[in-house]
């Protein structure tokens, strides 16, 4: 165990170093502050990738460490985006309205300002009144708090109900998926107060900073995302390396055994589930101002499944695996679907990657599950020659569950 612990610490140092170098290099090459070799849209892309890596870490914590395959963490990510989006949208619109009403002969009443703002925001979906959920939209602080609280409370309530009734394993997965579906269907409704299918848009324009060019804003957000990722990573390392982490792995491997040892398994799971939901919310709040728009399609159940796919391909049960998975799979995917990959002419048929990439991804996913359950992260084990014979007493990894070496060889 001692070596594993050191290894983890070493990997943390290496990860943080790489992240710092990466951030600096991108900054120096950016259009905003550097020499302009990396376009603003690519800086945004990289910034968003860092946010995806952060939500992948939170997914890895629940799944790779505690064995809860949540198909709802991308919904928490989206909720975080919605919460910050409300403030961004409200405040930007209010600035516009106040400027335009300032020219009026009679100073506007508070009600008139609020009505005009509501009309601008909700005119699209045919209402002109602020719904109740926008009560705190005028306060950045409150909305920032909600970024953490809303996903946290939703996950808390959901988790409390589910864990209390001992819903576990695949049932829990299906239930979280149902929750995600319900949430996205709810957000799709136009009369829910969050602008339905259109969602919240124009989020890249930060209120009060309209004069700052996007080239610069994108670098700020890139830094923000990098700091959040570093902090999230450190926090996660701290969580999983202590006693808490050991109990989590115990729960993953044999929940009943841990319960009989006297640990409040439900409480552990609940804290982790809600905590990672908060982390996902923060990642979302950093992601969507870079994307510029959030709408219910982002929260669709399939997005959460893809999140699981990233983590699985990157390597479950190791934090850098999640980061690699999110970065690698999403960037490679976009390379293939973006029409950048050259077509492969077979004579009788030309393989267009735009069409065939998903087939390849799906099948490679099956292959990874079957033959390389440790994912890309497993390659690092090979590098360190930490292969099978060295594993006495260590757990077999998340895929084998409680099966010990002897059982596994059967």
């Amino acid at each position, binding site marked *: 165990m001692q070596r594993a612990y050191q290894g983890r610490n070493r990997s943390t140092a290496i990860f943080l170093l790489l992240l710092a170098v990466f951030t600096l290099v991108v900054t120096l090459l950016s259009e905003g502050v550097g020499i302009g*070799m*990396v*376009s*603003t*849209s*690519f800086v*945004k*892309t*990289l910034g*968003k*990738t860092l946010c*995806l890596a952060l939500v992948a870490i939170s997914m890895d914590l629940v799944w790779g460490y505690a064995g809860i395959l949540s198909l709802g963490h*991308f919904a928490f990510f989206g909720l975080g985006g919605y919460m910050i989006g409300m403030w961004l949208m409200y405040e930007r*619109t209010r600035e*516009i309205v106040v*400027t*335009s009403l300032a*020219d*009026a002969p009679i100073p506007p009443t508070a009600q008139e300002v609020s009505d005009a703002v509501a009309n*601008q*925001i909700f*005119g*699209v*979906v*045919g209402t002109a009144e602020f719904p109740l959920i926008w009560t705190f939209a005028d306060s950045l602080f409150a909305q920032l708090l909600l970024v953490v609280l809303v996903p946290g409370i939703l996950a808390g309530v959901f988790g409390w109900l589910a864990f209390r009734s001992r819903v576990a394993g695949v049932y829990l997965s299906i239930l979280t998926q149902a929750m995600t579906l319900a949430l996205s*269907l709810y957000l*799709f*409704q*136009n009369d829910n107060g969050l602008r*339905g*299918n*259109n*969602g919240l*848009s*124009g989020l890249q*324009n930060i209120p009060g900073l309209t004069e700052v060019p*996007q080239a610069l804003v994108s670098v700020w957000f890139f830094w923000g995302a990098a700091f959040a990722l570093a902090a999230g990573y450190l926090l996660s390392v701290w969580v999983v390396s202590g006693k808490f982490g050991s109990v989590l792995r115990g729960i993953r491997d044999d929940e009943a055994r841990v319960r009989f040892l006297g640990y409040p398994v439900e409480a552990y799971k609940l804290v982790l589930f809600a905590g990672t939901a908060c982390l996902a919310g923060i990642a979302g709040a950093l992601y969507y101002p870079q*994307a*510029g*728009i959030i*709408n219910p*399609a*982002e929260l*669709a159940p*399939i*997005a959460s499944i*893809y999140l699981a796919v*990233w983590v699985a391909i990157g390597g479950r049960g190791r934090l850098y695996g999640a980061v690699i998975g999110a970065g690698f*799979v*999403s*960037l490679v*995917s*976009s*390379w293939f*679907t*973006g*029409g*950048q990959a050259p077509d492969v002419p077979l004579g009788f048929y030309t393989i267009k990657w*735009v*069409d065939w990439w998903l087939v390849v991804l799906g099948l490679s996913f099956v292959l990874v599950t079957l033959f390389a359950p440790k994912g890309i992260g497993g390659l690092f084990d090979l590098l360190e020659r930490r292969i099978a014979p060295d594993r006495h007493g260590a757990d077999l990894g998340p895929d084998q569950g409680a099966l010990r070496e002897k059982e596994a060889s059967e």
Partner: protein
Amino acid sequence: MNNYRSLLAGTLAFSALTAPAYAADCPIKVGVLHSLSGTMAISETTLKDTMLMLVEQQNAKGGLLGCDLEAVVVDPASDWPLFAEKARELLSVHEVDVIFGNWTSVSRKSVLPVVEELNGLLFYPVQYEGEESSKNVFYTGAAPNQQAIPATDYFLEELGVEKFALLGTDYVYPRTTNNILESYLKSKDIADSDIFVNYTPFGHSDWSKIVADVVALGADGKKVGVISTINGDANIGFYKELAAAGISADDIPVIAFSVGEEELSGLDTANLVGHLAAWNYFQSAESDANTGFIEAWKTKMGEERVTNDPMEAHYIGFNMWVNAATEAESTEVDAVRDKMYGQEFPNLTGGTAVMLPNHHLAKPVLIGEIQEDGQFDIVSQTAEVPGDAWTDFLPESALLTSDWKDLNCGMYNTETETCVQTLSNY
């Protein structure tokens, strides 16, 4: 699903790293921003092909300003945030002079801040809900008063409909359109209780209850008509259920705003004969220009392909842009925009489209009855109707007007005589 795709732009930027884009006068670049994959690909790929055909034709005519035109096609993959990213890439990396693109409203709202920030020029070819006017967008599709209002008038006056069922897919275009129609109908003395509104999700398939509800509306002896803003696949289930319930177009006529030749090609229309659609263009319109257009399209894409309204919108938009650039002797956005106002071009359906200072077109409104062969029989054609960015039938927007030529404002309050904002509302 959407998010990992949204990283797509970056890879293009990578290529830009190795070969930095340099602005050259030739060739003139035309950006095409239509989804080639994902849910919207089915509709938008057609428009991409239309643009390629138009660019090809223009080059055959000798190009523009002595240069060849080059179409830069990108794929935003039906992913709304990706539309913003791709638009930024087109404008700042590829440095295109104009963009033709978008289908859904949400994708347009996603692109708006980018084209306004970078002062690009976007031609948007699809009928939409209005309530928007951007300095950087020309709306060549129909505004509500160019499709929904004339269609409702047709229902009221020609078919004598007294009770309305407004059925729509739950997203912004049906919502806003139905809002406008509701207040329009009330202004025509239709009581609240005679307007039935229902929203269904995308791809809805269980229509029995809703169709039964619509039939039951006839119980108070008023003639019922359905105004459908149902989008895409859901129409198939809807029309199947309608046919199963044996509802004839003479009893309960259905007029659709989102069903065109392309959508009907996935349906057996034998049971739908007589139901209606309202557009600015039908393939069955008789004019020489249309015959030529259809012929060119079928030669390029295959005999079984059909033409539709957004294609005509691109046809008009593209030709107007070419003429405006020729007049301005430049493809620079501000110069072209100035020349766009008052730009005229013949419609494929006869008559002339005019670009108005509010960035909308004046176009005729056509109403067609579905025929057995999946084409439309045009039963009504109006004179050119000027597009209205802000509808007159909602109290808040009735005060607003858009005039980029003289007032230089897209959201001008006529009551207080002030410009509410020069950027658009997203």
